[in-house]
């Protein structure tokens, strides 16, 4: 399975920059996700790799082969790139049976009939659809259609697999099962895969690495943990999960820690590898579940980074509780596994749970 190199893609739609210097590398066997809200350029990027969009600048190579290079005017036609794609709508051809859908790519490659039969059945077996080979797409459920789409994208052993929001048309229950199944298949076959989604849960749970995109730019590339715990900017922090944003002025720096003076005069110690410019303003991102909330009379939470707060509202979310807190004007959202009694609480912000995003 080859690597995918995407370098400095630029694409303009009228006045809009759909892609602005998009670069990334997908390593062999990796499941790489492009995550972002609609219109962020993730699908344009994927379709550029597939050959259905032509950027104005940049270079795309898969394995040793250059598919696209604006500077030397290379643009390999989509049908000659040998990629497997699962489309958002599945695009299972409605006038062909499941078998014929899978056989088509092989017929295009002028395979012998017997070989086509054997290969199609083999791949149908792989996606557990062998018994439905003679069905037409309209006789299949959404989940089954998706399997056909995936099987069709695998049947000709493409060099890489591209998934364009493949789960968005499934209902919530089915979606979770499908995710696990696709992930398992992908890692078993060792398929180099690019996956596009706007769903952060999907991105975090399935990916080896994630590229978060916004307004045509890559905001951050990292493992799901890095993206979630160490968002590199405000957009990433807010887009991937719920977050508290705290702003303040740098008051001191010592041995990997910054003292931040929050609006209102309270001080917060935060881990920081590099010294920020003195007196600069910083914004911190803290996940709600990283906050510790205890009753006001507790003695376990004392000292630095602990604030007194007032409970404005709380909600039961099934597996946890969510508190909306007001710490003398500072609004915080906290998620804890046990309910805390009382209107007044103490809230602790761990120094290692804060990411500097601005």
């Amino acid at each position: 399975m080859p690597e995918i190199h995407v370098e400095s893609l630029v694409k303009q739609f009228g006045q809009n920059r759909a892609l602005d210097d998009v670069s990334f590398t997908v390593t062999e066997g990796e499941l790489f996700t492009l995550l972002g809200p609609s219109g962020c350029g993730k699908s344009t990027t994927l379709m550029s790799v597939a050959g259905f969009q032509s950027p104005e600048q940049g270079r795309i190579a898969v394995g040793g082969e250059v598919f696209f290079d604006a500077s030397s005017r290379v643009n390999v036609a989509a049908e000659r790139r040998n990629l497997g794609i699962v489309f958002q709508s599945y695009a299972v051809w409605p006038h062909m049976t499941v078998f014929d859908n899978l056989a088509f790519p092989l017929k295009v490659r002028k395979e012998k009939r017997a070989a086509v039969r054997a290969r199609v059945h083999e791949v149908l077996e792989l996606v557990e659809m062998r018994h439905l080979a003679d069905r037409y797409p309209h006789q299949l459920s959404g989940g089954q259609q998706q399997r056909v789409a995936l099987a069709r994208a695998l049947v000709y052993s493409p060099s890489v697999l591209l998934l364009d929001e493949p789960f968005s048309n499934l209902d919530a229950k089915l979606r979770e099962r499908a995710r696990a199944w696709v992930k398992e298949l992908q890692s078993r076959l060792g398929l180099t895969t690019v996956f596009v989604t706007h769903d952060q849960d999907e991105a975090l749970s399935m990916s080896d690495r994630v590229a978060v995109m916004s307004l045509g730019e890559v905001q951050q590339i990292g493992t799901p943990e890095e993206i979630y715990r160490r968002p590199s900017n405000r957009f990433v922090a807010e887009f991937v999960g719920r977050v508290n944003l705290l702003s303040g002025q740098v008051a001191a720096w010592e041995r990997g820690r910054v003292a931040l003076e929050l609006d209102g005069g309270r001080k917060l110690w935060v881990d920081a590898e590099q010294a920020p410019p003195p007196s600069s303003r910083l914004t911190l991102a803290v996940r709600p579940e990283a906050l510790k909330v205890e009753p006001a009379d507790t003695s376990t939470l004392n000292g630095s980074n602990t604030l007194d707060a007032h409970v404005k509202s709380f909600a039961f979310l099934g597996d946890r509780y969510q508190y909306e807190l007001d710490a003398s004007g500072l609004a915080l959202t906290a998620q804890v596994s046990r309910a805390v009694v009382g209107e007044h609480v103490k809230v602790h912000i761990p120094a290692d749970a804060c990411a500097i995003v601005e």
Partner: protein
Amino acid sequence: MTTTTYDAPLPRRRGRSLPTAGLLQWGTWVVVVGLILGPFVPLLYASIRDRPLYEGGGLFTLDAYRDLFSDAKFWRAALHTLEYAGMTTALSVVAGGAVAILVARTDLPGRKLYGRLTLLPLLLPSLGIVLGWIVVWGPGGYLSSFFETHLHLPTLDVNTIPGMSVIEATRLLPVAYMTCEAALARADSSLEDAARSAGATPLRVLRSVTIPMLRPALLNSGTLIFTLCIASLGIPLLLGTPRNIQFVSTYLYLQWTNAATPDSPLVSAGAMLLLAVATLLLLLRNRMLGAEARYVSVAGKAGRTAMLRLRGWKWPLGLAVALYIVFSTLVPVLGVALMSFVAFLTPLIAPWHLFTWANWDILGTGVYLRSIEHSALLALVGGVVTTAVVALATLVAHRSKLPVRKSLPFVMLYPRAIPGLIIGIGFFWAFLLTGGVGGWLRGGIWGILLAFCIRNLPFAYVVMYPTMARIGEELDRASRSVGAGWWRTCRSIVLPLLRPALFASFVLMFVEILNDYDPALFLVRPGTEVIGTTMLDTFLQGFVGPVASLAMVQVGVTVIVLALGTFVFKVRVTGGHDA
């Protein structure tokens, strides 16, 4: 299944697809654009020469236009055309809109059936229907004399401009009806529900919400109907000429055919003028309309309750619509049918005393048989060829990356706005100027076929486009991604999915070409007649009987083909006419 099988990659696809696809796409574009716009070049050329193109020599001059504008007869004809087009447009738009509202938004009994029957005049042969009007309502006609002698009631004089407008309006009303019905079907009826829940009475909703919502559809269909009226030749020729009422179309036709030496630059100049007006109207219409809205398919929400309860008006209005359908469609067809079995038609003598097979027997001979054979052949070949070419052109227009593809939809809709007469004159000059091939086309029926195909291809496009638009683009992309080239994708994915529309297009083209006549008037010569031209010729010579039986042949074949199309191939044929 293990990873090992997977690791043995299959060969990449072989062969080259791109250059052939490009060639095919460019070829299609050149052929379609060339054939549609090509004939207008020699037409323009002919209009600015001082003598007919078939005479050698000559100079460039604007004399033809000067002659045209200084001819009082031309101005009178232009005035008549305006009067005629204006009256027809008003009538058919108002009535068509009303029928659409009745069918789509009320509990009128039998409204579904009415909806279908209202469309019939579009598909029935227009020359035959005009003949039906003449034999039934014309001077000394079956019903007009009956009304006069027995009921002492005056009837509408069909040989006046208002009379002709009424007949033309019944022919074109379906255009307004279809556009309005489609607009109502896709309009969100919750807008009307909202007005009702806000306290408006149904009539108030009709006045304040429904009719304003229809305004774009009314304007759009009105412009199209106006354009079609200007282009109309059949009714003006058959009904206006006897009273010497000339219209622009008949003026040009008679200048060409009746004059001892036809002033061909003058006729060409007049044709150019008509072409310019029709083009302007088409551009105007495109401007008024969002390019997309025009193609939205007719698909209503099922099971919607009727908004407006007609109560006491239910049966009177139902009867009115029924009477309209009976008198506009059924009676003329019956009149023609009766006419074809009698020596002459008069209310004074019972028809069985005048019964004869002569009108049908004569169809087996000479020019009549030849015309029927030609028309059937042209309809069959034309239906297949036009469907194939338009399918290819539609694929290029909407499913390719050809740089010039966006010009195709406009070009393919263009002939709809152009008088058939002008297409005929254009091809006449084009054949004359293109040497051997042109001469061959001019000498046989294939030149006529070409003109018919070009004239009617907008219908094929309008039938195909909505279906193609519904075929998701990801289906093509999926095919490309698995290694199929453009043409392979079209062949294996898009065209099979387009099959119902291809059938519909064939049926529609067959019927249209079978019944068409005016583009052929300038191209026909002894030995290459088609049904329409023979009917017109025979009628102008004063023999009505054979015209009636020819019309019945058209009606019969049209009905059979439409029925086959509807019930065997399950196609909705009428969809094309609101282009």
